[in-house]
């Protein structure tokens, strides 16, 4: 019996010929990523034991994405502490405020996370790695153990394969497909807890931005990983950016899956996810026309350059509706720079959107740009549990970047197809 791609990557990192679901392994990561929320507590934990060093100053990346503009005195103090810790430990890859951006986006865009990479991260959204054919495993506060020892116990997860069939309609994006996937899995009572969801089938149609978006919603349903086998196009892009040589990894033809499912994507409509969880998606017709107050494009789920392009296609030459505030949060500083050279920045500014520093943006607990009681928000946030970014009685709809942009322009939930916007790569 063969192995899935995730099993192969875990086996390689664990210096084993093969691993099987349920095995406990101690993988040696190619890199470790820690965000601004866990650096100080990890340091305190290791100080408490007397550990005064990290396992490898060159393989550790400290990123700043959860509170990049320091929205509280405590955050300012934390920033100071982080910079001190970076010096004490000699961390070589430190991305301070205003540098790098979202830790689940810029490492992919800058060729640090490449196809086949295995890494540990404190945050669950490291599943984004699957969008480029890599594996990132979330270990929460046990990232401190990884920082000290270079590994932590890891249970090899089972994999569920989902074959996507057909071509999505124009105006329907990877994010919509992701919403629909989890809606279907929830309806069928399929639990993703600590499973890898591997996608197969007609994947060629999804660019890197959409692949990242596809990784998001299953993660909110507790998947430990989403794996999308990289296409020729993705591999060529990755090769152009890669900081070091890489070897893409694919599942064996006789790999074992816990479940083998299919989904016809050709019938999917643009989705609007109702407040309370990513699996609560409905076709946009059910909510079209609902007034909105708050709109946000960004987050680990939809902060890739491709997402910004999709939104800009609608916003170009148009204005955000009166009474609506639109926040645009590029996933990375690379995106911000490119927006300036490509003219996208001008499109957003002239539309009346507020372009914010790269990072998690509003999705990080609404530290910036929260919603008020009774308001209706439509956004590309990773999640929309009650109170995720502001008042507990606010509506938090989720949708694709195109749907959010279209809604911001009209002031009501709007089908992006009303603006004749097609998928990236296709004629508008």
């Amino acid at each position, binding site marked *: 019996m063969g192995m899935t791609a995730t099993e192969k990557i875990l086996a390689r990192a664990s210096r084993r010929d093969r691993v099987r679901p349920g095995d406990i392994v101690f993988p040696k990561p190619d890199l470790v990523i820690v965000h601004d929320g866990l650096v100080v507590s990890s340091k305190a934990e290791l100080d408490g034991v007397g550990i005064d060093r990290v396992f490898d100053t060159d393989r550790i990346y400290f990123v700043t994405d959860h509170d990049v503009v320091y929205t509280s005195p405590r955050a300012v103090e934390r920033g100071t502490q982080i910079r001190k810790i970076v010096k004490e430990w000699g961390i070589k890859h430190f991305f301070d405020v205003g540098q790098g951006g979202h830790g689940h986006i810029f490492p992919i865009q800058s060729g640090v996370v490449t196809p086949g990479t295995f890494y540990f991260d404190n945050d669950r959204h490291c599943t984004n790695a699957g969008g480029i054919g890599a594996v990132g495993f979330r270990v929460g506060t046990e990232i401190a153990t990884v920082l000290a020892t270079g590994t932590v116990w890891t249970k090899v997860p089972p994999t569920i394969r989902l074959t996507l069939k057909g071509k999505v309609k124009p105006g329907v994006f990877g994010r919509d497909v992701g919403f629909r996937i989890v809606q279907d899995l929830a309806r069928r009572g399929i639990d993703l807890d600590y499973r890898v969801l591997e996608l197969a089938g007609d994947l060629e149609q999804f660019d890197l931005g959409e692949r990242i978006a596809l990784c998001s919603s299953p993660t909110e349903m*507790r998947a430990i990983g989403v794996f999308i086998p990289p296409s020729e196009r993705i591999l060529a892009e990755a090769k152009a950016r890669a900081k070091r040589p890489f070897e893409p990894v694919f599942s064996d033809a006789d790999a074992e899956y816990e479940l083998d499912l299919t989904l016809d994507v050709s019938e999917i409509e643009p989705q609007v996810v109702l407040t309370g969880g990513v699996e609560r998606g409905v076709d946009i017709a059910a909510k079209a026309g609902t007034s909105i107050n708050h709109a946000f494009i960004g987050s680990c789920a939809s902060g890739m350059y491709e997402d910004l392009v999709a939104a800009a296609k609608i916003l170009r030459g148009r204005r955000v509706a009166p009474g609506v505030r639109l926040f645009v949060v590029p996933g990375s500083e690379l995106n911000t720079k490119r927006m300036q050279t490509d003219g996208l920045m001008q499109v957003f500014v002239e539309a009346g959107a507020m372009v914010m520093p790269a990072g998690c943006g509003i999705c990080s607990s609404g530290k910036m740009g929260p919603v008020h009681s009774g308001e209706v928000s439509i956004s590309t946030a990773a999640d929309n549990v009650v109170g995720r970014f502001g008042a507990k009685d606010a509506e938090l709809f989720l949708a694709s970047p195109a749907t959010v942009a279209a809604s911001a322009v009209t002031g009501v939930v709007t089908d992006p197809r009303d603006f004749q916007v097609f998928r990236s790569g296709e004629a508008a």
Partner: protein
Amino acid sequence: MSAFQWKLAGRCHKFGHDIPHPGPVIPKHLIAGRYMDPKDLVPHLFSELRPGFPDKCKPGDIIVTGRNFGMGPKMNGYIAMQALGLGLMTETMPFLAYRAALGVGLRVLDTCPGILNLVEDGDEIECDFSTGAFANRTRKIQKTFDPIPEALRELVSLGGTSGFLRQWWEANRPRETAAARA
């Protein structure tokens, strides 16, 4: 490691299905406030579901639950269980909850299918967490579940992550550092 007590014997504290960690296991404000000291947590263990629970249990007792116990990745409730000397057996628990429980050194079996049918609250039960051997002495039932995996027994026997790190550092601390400190 041989001195570690893998077998617990005591009363069964039976709970149902789908009990989330924030709230029912331990009050939300203690999680949000990042309380990690057992003395702050123990008095509030299961306070929403069974007021006075900590006074009704003794070391060796085992909490037995149904499916999906302890939703959420936090460890506060398990710190309280560990401080009280309790064990935990669930029909299922989300992986991150299991990981959090092991991280504080709790003796826990997360996959005990059908165990709710084998016990009633107050039964005298025992479990060897290193072999999975379970017995309900009140009802004369014996069954074997999957034990704590061998690769994780060191972590548990050392009292969880902090004990594990302490031992690791003892073994891996560079010599010159040790000499400099001496």
